[in-house]
């Protein structure tokens, strides 16, 4: 099913933001929409967006490749993106991430065996005064989790596990 069929209201709202002769501008919001359900963008979705905006599939793929919040591979349902940049690192973010890895039994870049969490280390998220912190990127968008501890993070993961099981 094409994006326009699946999300008619959202697609219309997105296109209305930009001058009709510059509809290419809609590529970024449309990619977020395409990524909403599965957490990654399929080749078919890229083709669909390309034809909707009269640009080539390669141009769409180059956008997916350039920006770090778009993904072209299926990974965990939630990406847990821990900031380990300088200001956070000065406040213990690296130790936090290491402990988290130990608790989850995975390395940075890996996914938990149940497919729920992919753990990533990312660049500054503009929350330097609330380290350690991370964002979760998932079906319901991006959320910030600040002033975190490993215990609080494990609780959050349990809650995500529960809501995923209930949804099934």
């Amino acid at each position, binding site marked *: 099913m094409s994006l326009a069929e699946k999300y008619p209201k959202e697609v219309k709202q997105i296109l209305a933001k930009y001058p009709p002769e510059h509809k290419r501008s809609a590529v970024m919001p449309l990619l977020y929409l395409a990524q909403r359900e599965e957490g990654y963008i399929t080749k078919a979705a890229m083709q669909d967006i390309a034809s909707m905006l009269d640009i080539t599939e390669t141009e769409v793929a180059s956008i997916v490749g*350039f920006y770090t919040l778009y993904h072209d591979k299926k990974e965990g349902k939630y990406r847990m993106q821990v900031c380990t940049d300088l*200001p956070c690192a*000065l406040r213990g973010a690296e130790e936090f991430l290491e402990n988290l890895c130990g608790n989850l039994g995975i390395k940075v870049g890996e996914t938990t065996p149940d497919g729920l969490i992919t753990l990533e280390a990312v660049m500054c998220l503009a929350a330097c005064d609330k380290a350690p912190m991370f964002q979760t990127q998932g079906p319901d968008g991006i959320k910030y989790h600040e002033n975190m501890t490993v215990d609080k993070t494990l609780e959050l993961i349990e809650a995500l596990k529960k809501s995923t099981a209930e949804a099934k």
Partner: protein
Amino acid sequence: MPHVLLRHRDIPEINKLETYKTNGGFEAFKNAVTKMKPNEVTEVVKNSGLRGRGGAGFPTGMKWSFIDNKNWPHYVVANADESEPGTFKDREIMENNPFQFLEGIAIASYAVGANTAYIYLRGEFWQIAAFLDEKIAEMEAAGYLGKNLFGTDYSLKIYTHLGAGAYICGEETAMLESIEGKRGQPRVRPPFPPSYGLYGKPTIVNNVETLTNVPLILANGAEWYKSMGTADSAGVKIFSLSGRVRKPGNYELPFGTTFRELIYTYGGGVQDSRKVKAIMPAGASSSLILVDDEKILDTPMDYATVRTLGADLGSASVIVVDDTVSMDWLINKTVHFFRHESCGKCTPCREGTYWMSHLTERIHEGRASHADVDLLLNVAKQMQGKCLCALGEFSTMAVVTGIERFRQDFDKAVKSNS
């Protein structure tokens, strides 16, 4: 003194339209549209001495006056990409005092003759974008945005646009490319956005904090604004304080406040009562200020005075580094950041950040010789003045000043191996 920007700290419900209105909200915009010519608005902002808060410190009113009135339509773009490590001020404004920011966009748009404005938010500000969309809708419903505002023929629409994780999109021409649906790579300048901006049309790009100053400047006058701060740097600034301090956070203070007041009076001092070793006043892009003399902490923070310490105030994201930190570790961090964020368009930055990261890694891991430190310094200096945009330059600042001002840290890191 009541806050000028972080007004939610004095008026908790200022994020509600009614509360904002009862505190004088939208009066400045209404007054501008119904009683002032666009260039009169620009003149007030010019006279206020307001300078861009994104880092470059360019005079805001002067930027507005550069708009090309022979080419239409015009656009205003609010830069809400806030991605500099150490900066987290625009977020607090948008989350808590959204209407003052939006009114600032509206006044800027009127001043430069734009009927469409975009807010470019970094992709991670997903929730803030949704929140601003709600606030924009409330303003439309109340008649502060839309067609024929206040019974005049002036119309304005504001839209949010989310980036998707790219520091470089904070560079204004990369941001415009990104809104156009392209990879966020900077353009060759000139031409500058006021003559060739979004879709090739005249465009003014201003930072969130800059725009949030505007409603109160219009309401209270240029003289009021200039009465705060210093002669060189008028008004107030939000200092984002982070690193090894007890109370990190945003502090809105007049320009000219000293580092000591910020770190000790507001920030509660250094963790574990250690000594300040270095200060990065402009985030990861900053030169490292060597604090080898207590007196340096008494330097007033304004654009001109910070420059006398061999650094720039930039966006005033003050990262405090204490004496437990070794600079070889620190520059390894900053260089990896810039290597990751380099857009790849120009060779000096793409290759330079890559090779610097190999050297900083080798040094930090104790696998380097003294010659490697010299080579790193050489690579960084070779990059300077040759990159297409500021990102490449920024990547060299901590490296060059780190090695030149803290050489002993590097000698220690390589000692075992040479």
